[in-house]
């Protein structure tokens, strides 16, 4: 996990994103417990309430579940769901920016497609 403390994204939102990211990369494994609020709070010196707020977002999205007396666990199938939502948001999150930057640099549609192909062939 890493956080950008002066990003425009509030810290609790970053915590939610980082937890999801960790689930995708396999840092947090499905059906297994993730670190507690206190552990994350201590590790990154973030107020526990902020950490909890971030975690609760992920719980609300259905990727984490609270098991009473045990802690937070990654829901089965969460990784696939996160991947899907990331794919769904790929256009909005990346493609739009890519194209707007390309336009700023006077890169044509064909040139951009060529560059993307080059990237894939590497």
């Amino acid at each position: 996990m890493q956080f950008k403390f002066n990003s425009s994204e509030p810290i609790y939102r970053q915590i939610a994103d980082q937890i999801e990211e960790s689930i995708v990369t396999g840092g947090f494994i499905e059906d297994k417990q993730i670190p507690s609020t206190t552990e994350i709070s201590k590790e990154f010196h973030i107020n526990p309430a902020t950490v909890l707020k971030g975690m609760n977002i992920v719980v609300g999205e259905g990727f984490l579940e609270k098991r009473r007396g045990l802690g937070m666990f990654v829901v089965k199938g969460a990784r696939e769901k996160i991947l899907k939502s990331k794919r769904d948001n790929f256009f909005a999150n990346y493609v739009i920016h890519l194209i707007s930057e390309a336009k700023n640099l006077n890169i044509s549609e064909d040139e951009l497609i060529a560059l993307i192909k080059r990237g894939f062939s590497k």
Partner: protein
Amino acid sequence: MSVLEVKHISKSFGTSNVLSDINLTFEANKIYGLLGRNSAGKSTLLNIITNRIFADSGEVTIDSENVAENDSKLGQMFLMSEVNTYPAGSTLSFIIKQTEQLYGGFNHQLANRLVNEFELDLSQKFGKLSTGYNSIFKLVLALCVPVKFVIFDEPVLGLDANHREIFYTELLQSYSDTPRTIILSTHLIEEITQIISDVIVIDHGNILLDQTVEDVLSKTHAVAGPSSDVNQYTNGLNVIGSETMGNLKTNYVFGDLDDRILPDTVQLSKFDLQKLFIFLTTGAPVKGGNKGEN
């Protein structure tokens, strides 16, 4: 769930007004950051809260009961401060014993862990401690007494980076184990920005800011771009500082942006609490002018 309230506190030393009609509420189990420049009135305020000195007017209450000359209320607070209140000739373990007797409890388990982590020697005399270990010893006391309000005035004075790291980690661990209200008064703003949930900025004896960190940060906007575009965009907004480099300008806005249209040439981002603090407390009234360069 106890609430500590500061009501209409004013204080002057001789002719200089140190605090003017201060009103604050410290809620249960939150971590507050109390920020202010040197001699802004922070220590005076904390000394008044803990009844070490008297205010000229106003009162401090815990759960609506005045704390002045009130053992049970005073016993719910611990102020760790720069001033040395312990006898120089006493050993650290003796001071711990006395503290335990007077507060009616002490978390020895935590104390032992902290003593090990900080490599503190309890057989030393209090007066013989270095600045760093003087702070460390008081931190240990503050974290281990059974109080509802733990107040730190310059907690990391003289601590090296490693020891500061241990302090923040242990503070959060202890807070998670035993939730209570914590007030951190420090100059190292960047180190505590994420730890505190609420921030209070005091300047020349007045409260400039008393809000949650989340709200405060959501109102910070750095507006960067060509000088004229930036000025036009921020016209009428609360610009608290700016920086210029050639024809490029950044205006720092504190407050909500309205629905005005952002020109393509202008970029928006956030800025951090430390920067906000500097702009708010730099003294001279802030105009849109060029003052970031000095």
